[in-house]
């Protein structure tokens, strides 16, 4: 018999928007189920810069988005301290860029109340030694950085702790309607094919780049431009603060520090396919050339990988010929009852990582109105727990670097790891680049027959360092079998999938040392470990 389940709100999409909505609903005591086709945040939510906007970037072109960003910036610094680094940011004017823009920009930031202050060039050069000495003016702004991986996991965990339900690897196959009202969704488990009906009087489409597919199933018109941007990761972190180029926003003008690396981007090319994560060498080279205006040594620095993700930009009218950059970065909350006569269906799209909380608040306000609830939003104040832990894991025999990482990582799970790390083998470091212990990996393996190294990576940073999983992916797959958390075939498949995915991101940046590393990975797996035949078998 087909499984069925009843709830008040069904949320489609496990990115930061959907997850934020799920948490907001849960905190207001509204029953909700979130359905995600892959792993949490496999799409845009982990395929971005990880920039906590101060709003300055949009101050001239999109004051509304700018103000929202700044307000949310202040709120998030308070409420999700575990995923934010308060780096501060710089806007740098370089020769050739429009002087008039600088005046308009300063004027607008002033009017919007975003604190901007010019700093002496010598100070900027001292603090950011890689910054171009051609810089003509440098302003400091309250930008920051967001670890979107921990953010998603923590927001989702808080939602679940407050009673929400989460179904990952479930795709929506249909929207149920009764007359002019939605009544739920049909979903299918993408791994075992099992189907399920989720009855809910309210359905929220928070599917980001996949949003048009959902609208199509519901038979409502929706036009979203998927604007694909490419980003690259450098092997080390060379800037203390976020470095922005002070000009009308364009390609290749933001450098964001993220833990021990720097992320640089981005580009913007419209794509019709939400599953298009392709990478283009030429596009990247152009972006790097632009980036050299801010960081002249950019071509000498080692890149470890590239990735791409699509910004879902809402368009009121389905106009042709938009480049994507001129469409609002603001959010769009659509009540399909009012708009299209299909009551109970809501689409939330557009927006920024920085404004995810506000998007959730507005969406759930609308839900409350529809449900006749007067529950108030609490996410402006209700903070997620910090990731820091005061415990020094003294009971565990840990390498110093792994201990340091855990103390900035374990957060509320400290007691759990305190216990698991007592086992000597659990304290072994499996991923040397990111100092991930077996205890952390073990806790991230669901053990339900679906070992996925990407899912583990998003939860632990496994394989994110310069070797890109060459050593730790193999160890993880083998250890999973050893500890009875995965079957051999499952582990072999996960390994081949994981290596292929890492290779894709490395291939496009593979020059110098990264080209060498890529070859080493290929040699070790295909030749030394003899997985050559395994890969052929999987292709059959």
């Amino acid at each position, binding site marked *: 018999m087909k499984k069925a389940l009843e709830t008040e709100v069904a949320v489609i999409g496990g990115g930061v928007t959907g997850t934020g909505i799920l948490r907001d609903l849960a905190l207001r005591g509204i029953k909700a189920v979130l359905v995600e086709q892959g792993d949490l945040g496999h799409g845009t939510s982990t395929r971005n810069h990880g920039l906590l906007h101060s709003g300055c970037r949009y101050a001239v072109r999109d004051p509304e988005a700018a103000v929202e960003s700044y307000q949310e910036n202040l709120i998030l610094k308070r409420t999700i301290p575990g995923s934010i680094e308060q780096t501060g940011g710089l806007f740098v004017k370089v020769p050739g860029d429009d002087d008039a823009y600088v005046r308009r920009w300063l004027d607008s930031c002033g009017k919007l109340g975003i604190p901007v202050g010019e700093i002496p060039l010598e100070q900027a050069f001292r603090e950011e030694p890689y910054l171009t000495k051609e810089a003509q003016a440098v302003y400091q702004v309250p930008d920051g950085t967001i670890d979107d991986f921990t953010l998603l996991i923590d927001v989702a965990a808080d939602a679940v702790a407050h009673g929400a339900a989460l179904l990952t690897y479930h795709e929506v196959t249909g929207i149920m309607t009764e007359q002019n009202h939605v009544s739920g969704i049909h979903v299918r488990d993408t791994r075992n094919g099992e189907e399920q009906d989720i009855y809910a009087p309210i359905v929220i489409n928070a599917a980001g780049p996949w949003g048009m597919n959902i609208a199509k199933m519901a038979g409502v018109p929706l036009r979203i431009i998927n604007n694909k941007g490419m980003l690259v990761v450098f092997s080390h972190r060379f800037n203390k603060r976020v470095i922005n180029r002070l000009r009308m926003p364009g390609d290749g003008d933001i450098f964001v520090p993220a833990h021990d690396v720097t992320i640089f981007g981005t580009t913007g090319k419209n794509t019709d396919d939400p599953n298009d994560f392709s990478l283009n060498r030429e596009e990247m080279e152009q972006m790097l050339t632009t980036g050299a205006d801010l960081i002249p040594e950019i071509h000498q620095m080692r890149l470890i990988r590239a990735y791409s993700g699509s910004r879902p930009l809402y368009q009121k009218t389905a106009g042709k010929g938009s480049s994507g950059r001129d469409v609002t970065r603001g959010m769009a909350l659509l009540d399909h009852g009012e708009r299209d006569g299909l009551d109970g269906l809501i689409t939330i799209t557009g927006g920024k990582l920085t404004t995810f909380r506000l998007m959730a608040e507005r969406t759930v306000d609308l839900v409350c109105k529809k449900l006749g609830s007067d529950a108030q939003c609490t996410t402006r104040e209700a903070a997620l727990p910090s990731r820091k832990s005061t415990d020094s894991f003294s009971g565990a025999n840990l390498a110093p670097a792994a201990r340091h990482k855990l103390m900035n990582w374990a957060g509320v799970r400290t007691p759990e790891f305190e216990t698991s790390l007592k086992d000597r083998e659990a304290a072994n470091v*499996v991923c040397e680049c990111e100092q991930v212990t077996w205890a952390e990996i073990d806790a991230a393996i669901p053990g339900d027959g679906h070992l996925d190294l990407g899912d583990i990576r998003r939860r632990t940073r496994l394989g994110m360092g310069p070797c890109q999983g060459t*050593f730790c992916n193999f160890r993880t797959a083998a*250890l999973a079998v050893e500890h009875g958390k995965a079957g*051999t075939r499952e582990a072999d498949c996960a390994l081949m999938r994981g290596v292929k995915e890492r290779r894709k991101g490395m291939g496009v940046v593979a*020059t110098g040392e990264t080209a060498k590393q890529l*070859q*080493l990975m290929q040699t070790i797996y295909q*030749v030394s470990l*003899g997985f050559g035949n395994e890969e052929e078998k999987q292709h059959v």
Partner: protein
Amino acid sequence: MYDVVVIGQGLSGMLAAIWARGEGKRTAMIMSGAGKIMQSTGVLDLIPGSRGTLDEWMKQYPFHSENKADVLQAVAKFKALTRELGYPYNGDVREPVPVVTGSGHIKETALYPDTVTPVPDRGHAVVVGFQELPDFQPLFISKNLQKERPLMTVDAIRIPLGEDSQRVLTQLDAARLLDQKEVRARCLRRISGQLADKGISQADFFVFPSSLGNEAWAQTLKQFSEGLGARVTEAPGMPPNATAIRLNDRLKLKAIRSGVRLYADTTVTGADIEKNHIRSVRVRMANRATDVAGRQFVLATGGILGGGLEVTPDGIRETALHLNTDGDGRPMNPPDNLFLAGASGGRQLTRHGIVGGVYSLVSSYASVFGLRKTVAGGMAK
């Protein structure tokens, strides 16, 4: 002035230097880094990553079938050298054999040292892992081996190697521990204990990590095969593999002892080339730069993996002599007294990143024994 200057200390470079010296040539070997044998498995494959016969190999690489006798002669010379080094290699390039890897999968290889035993089709195998060694997980390996060898019975056991060890070991660390007699004895006791616990009595094939002793590999092999009453093999996989390190150490020692002049931690930064003839190469050491002159030069700097070729946004660059190369990194119109050994000949020679041990040794042989013949010599002609 040297007769032969070899650039590179991987398998190709070391063999070329040793063989050139063996021919009475005044020989220098210039080395930066550690050499890529360190990251290899120590078994010499024909076509890396796939099964293939010698005939297929000769078609894929720039050799002709009439050179088969030369290839066999090169292999015989390599085997003789390894016997002399006290680390003998077995195998026949005409009949590659199946060996088990550190993942439990089976691959074919052509030449392998005494510590590696081809994997049988049937019988009772036991994979032995060490608790401190994350790169070799016995259960995972045994299950993969079981898939590859359905007629075999495969078990796995796991023992601690140390008395009360707290650290994570590599395969090489484990090999060094097993150099100690008492560690070996303890290891055997623990294996016997585990076998008894699991009721395994008929095992005739034991699979170990690539760790069966470093210096004392022969004693380890003997003690283990006698103590277990079975055939024993190393299963090389994730580097560092002791199987390879032994070869590296012994080749290097041989080079030094036979009188090859070693320039360690020295980088070649260019060459003095006149009328397409190298007079000397410029080298940079820790505290000075100088020229090394020679009559013949062997470029054994490797491909992309070895660092002899570098991928740049504009194409592939040859890093030592700055030769012009084609799109694959193959030097175009190389100097008449330069010989290309191993992967330095261009990307078209590599499969999954490497040329394979057999190509390395044959090309080194060709570069040395081609020296006697015409200048452009070698079998690649």
